[in-house]
């Protein structure tokens, strides 16, 4: 049976994961784009990304593009799996309403 995930359930982290799993598994999204998409501050997003990275749900890739530092984020296979299970668990709660 699918279980709820405490780390993912936090509203900002839930939206981060929702955005990342919408991408193709091989794609990674720019930090500033994710920040604008979620309408959060740099600090807030950074803190939640760290939590997700520590959990192994996302991968953070820091690179230089045209001599400027860029941070790219993607969901890991584990992150996709636990997010999927979390959604199933949420749907189960609604069904049993």
């Amino acid at each position, binding site marked *: 049976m699918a279980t709820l*995930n405490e780390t993912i*359930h936090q509203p900002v982290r839930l*939206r981060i994961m*929702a955005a990342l799993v*919408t991408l193709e598994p*091989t794609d*990674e999204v720019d930090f500033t*784009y994710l920040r604008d998409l979620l309408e959060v501050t740099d600090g807030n997003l950074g803190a939640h990304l760290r939590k997700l990275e*520590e*959990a192994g749900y996302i991968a953070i890739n820091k690179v230089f593009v045209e001599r400027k530092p860029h941070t790219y984020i993607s969901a890991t296979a584990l992150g996709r799996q636990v997010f999927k299970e979390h959604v199933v668990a949420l749907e189960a709660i609604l069904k049993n309403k």
Partner: protein
Amino acid sequence: MAKNDHHLAVSPDEAEEALAAIQTIAQKTRQSLSSGGTYITLIVTGVVWLVGFTCTQFLSGQVVGYIWTGLSIVGGLTGAVMGLRMGKRVRSPLTTQTMKRVVLFWLFVVIYGATIIGITRPGDGKQAVLFVVLFIMLGQLAMGMLFSFSTVWWALPVSALALVGYFFLPGIFYLWMAILGGGGMIALGLYIRFRW
């Protein structure tokens, strides 16, 4: 690894709220990334066709050539700028690996198209336009089939519209292409942008 709390208490209302938030952000992401390039391509190409074909219908000679050249440059530059902007938002190994092949493919489409037009020597401007439109739409379809771009199906109705105009409305063929081809692409682009 973070802990999974199997006893996390979530009420049905909270679950509903969370699922709605997931759906909203997933839709927003799809709109801005997956279909972002498509709607811009459609609107830019639509404007180029609308202005270009309207001018072809009512103007003549060298002026039309200059207008098409200018429009093609503006359209190409806009597409390139938008492509670069999209590329900075999302990095995809697939895109990086295949980009050279995509460019080569379109180069071959242009070379083959120009060769066929050169050999067959179309009788009038309409035939040449139809050749070019069909070649571009064929290329667009090939892109969709090879790379699973979800929103390239518009190439089929545009091809069909071009054929209908060519065979049944030769007197207003260019105007037909401007309004239905160009206008249709703009309308579809706006639909994808605001309603997708």
